[in-house]
């Protein structure tokens, strides 16, 4: 019997091709867009987290537990005793580590001799830092710091340079409290201007080598943080989970040290993102509601155009439940066609966004987007689970929608159906 019902349902779906196509198209567009937007939203998340990893946080930061507790004030105490040994042990504990680099952050005042602004300074190892962060790839002007240079070279954020009215080759006076708590000042020549999609660097970031930093802040300036680079995974969730796993390995291999994975550093953002994900799931509900109304309408039209057929089937002994199954099957088939179309459309759009993406840097060049970390092209992400969920939701919602008119068809009196004009 099921074979006959499926055969009648399938042929009716094909017979009313235009009607089927229009109904299925609503589902196709809705589910396709849901899959695409989910991918793009994931891409935006990825872009934000990548910006944090590439410019400010790295995949994981390792520091002493005391420094971690007091890190808000950028203290120069609580440094890492033997950073080289710690870096070696990190690489042993986490074999996936690509590179690591020492850093020391401090609070300073930058002055052009007329105005003075507070800045966050970072002492770096210019050669190693390039292996972990991508700052060197974002020089708006000038060059990267020379490795092992004893000269007072400095990199400044583009926004900061603009605020202070300084440019390449100009001198900045940095004043800061040194390790021994004395107030020191020194002059630094701007060798590079950083144009980075991270507001804190652009507006208040300066970078100097460890050599000049020790001249300014004291010879015993400690390494306060070791920034670690881990491989990038195909999806953000995988990447965050890999960073947490790596941090756990470091904590157990280096007692007394604290490892902050990017997953923790981005905790606030992720909380916001999860909230956003809840709202984005409303999109599919609205789409399915619209598609559901379309399917109810289509199946109702199908019922009304085939009332006599229902009468004949009932007259020959078909049960009301089987009539209901016949029309539910039609809805299910339309839902399957539409959802499959949505899966294909969504897949093509996601493929395009993963392969080519939106060149946001070109689209918004010249626009100041403030805190929005836009750099390079915005790429989507493959989310097979979302694609499958979209497809299944479409099919199930269609089947549920079709059951409403199908029930109506099953309730028809045989004589009324046979004499329906």
């Amino acid at each position, binding site marked *: *019997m099921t*074979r*006959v019902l499926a*055969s*009648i349902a399938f*042929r*009716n779906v*094909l*017979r009313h091709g235009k009607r089927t196509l229009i109904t299925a198209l609503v589902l196709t567009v809705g589910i396709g867009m849901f899959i695409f937007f989910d991918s793009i939203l994931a891409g935006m998340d990825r872009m934000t987290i990548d910006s944090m990893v590439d410019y400010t946080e790295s995949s994981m930061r390792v520091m002493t537990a005391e420094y971690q507790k007091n890190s808000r004030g950028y203290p120069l105490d609580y440094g890492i005793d033997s950073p080289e040994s710690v870096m070696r042990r990190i690489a042993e504990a986490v074999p996936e580590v690509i590179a690591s680099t020492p850093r020391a952050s401090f609070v300073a005042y930058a002055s052009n001799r007329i105005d003075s602004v507070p800045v966050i300074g970072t002492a770096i190892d210019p050669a190693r830092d390039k292996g972990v962060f991508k700052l060197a790839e974002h020089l708006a002007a000038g060059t990267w710091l020379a490795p092992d240079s004893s000269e007072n070279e400095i990199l400044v954020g583009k926004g900061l340079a603009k605020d202070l009215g300084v440019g390449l080759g100009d001198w900045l006076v940095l004043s800061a409290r040194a390790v021994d708590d004395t107030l020191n000042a020194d002059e630094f020549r701007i060798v590079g201007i950083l144009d980075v999609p991270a507001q804190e660097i652009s507006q208040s970031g300066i970078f100097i080598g460890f050599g000049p930093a020790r001249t300014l802040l004291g010879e015993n300036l400690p390494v306060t943080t070791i920034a670690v680079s881990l491989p990038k995974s195909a999806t953000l969730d995988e990447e965050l989970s890999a960073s947490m796993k790596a941090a756990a390995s470091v904590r157990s291999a280096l007692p007394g040290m604290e490892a902050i994975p990017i997953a923790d550093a981005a905790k606030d953002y992720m909380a916001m993102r999860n909230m956003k994900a809840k709202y984005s799931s409303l999109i599919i509900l609205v789409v399915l509601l619209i598609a559901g109304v379309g399917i109810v309408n289509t199946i109702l039209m199908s019922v009304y155009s085939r009332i*006599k*057929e229902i*009468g*004949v*089937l*009932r*007259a*020959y*002994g*078909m*049960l*009301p439940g*089987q009539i209901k199954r016949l029309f539910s099957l039609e809805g299910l088939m339309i839902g399957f066609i539409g959802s499959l179309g949505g899966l294909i459309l969504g897949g093509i759009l996601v493929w395009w966004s993963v392969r080519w993406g939106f060149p946001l840097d070109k689209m918004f060049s010249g626009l100041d987007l403030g805190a929005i970390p836009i750099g390079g092209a915005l790429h989507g992400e493959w989310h097979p689970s979302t694609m499958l969920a979209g497809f299944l939701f479409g099919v199930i919602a269609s089947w549920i929608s079709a059951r409403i008119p199908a029930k109506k068809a099953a309730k028809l*009196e*045989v*004589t009324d159906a*046979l*004499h329906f004009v």
Partner: protein
Amino acid sequence: MGILSLSGITKIYRKGEIEVVALGGINLEFDKEEFCAIVGPSGSGKTTLLNIIGCLDRPTAGTMRYRDKELRMLGEKELSEYRREHVSFIFQSYNLIPVLTVAENVEIPLSIAGKLQKQEMRKKALEILDAVGIADKANRFPRELSGGQEQRVAIARALVKDPVVVLADEPTANLDSHTADEIVLLMKTINKSLHTTFIFSTHDKMIMDEALRVVQLHDGLVTKDERRTT
């Protein structure tokens, strides 16, 4: 005693406050292999009577027995079973399923009964299509057939499950006189060869003349019940 007996069958339709008596107490008995015409003017109750015999509709009062089984007391499932196994229908406007081929339309009652395999159903459908003279149209769709051919398919569909009783509601009303004559002769041939009981309603005098029993209805009552010899 016949295979079907109706006693005091009454059918009253209610439309708000108004009551319409479609059948006012019908007493009839049908034997096996009968070829019976139900005649009468429009509104006399012919279709209502056929619907009640076919268990498509329930009487308001009265009893109806089929082989000693009281049909009025049966539930929806048992009534569906009665329709599936024992009676078949031929409709005025053929009512073939347009998306199915001729052979598939004929197979429908067998599929609903669910007793035969696919190959057996197809074999039976082709045999019966051959008997009604349109085996060559087995793979055509209803839209490709003439009215007479469609009604032959409807007859084949009615006969394929070897029913005891075939109920036909004005089976020739949509056909020209020549085709109508052919269809009635076909029904009569099957009645003789397969021993199937035919009960059909008609307005057509020529078709009435072919019947071996004529039951005349007027205002829901039997006014004449005439049996003829061949």
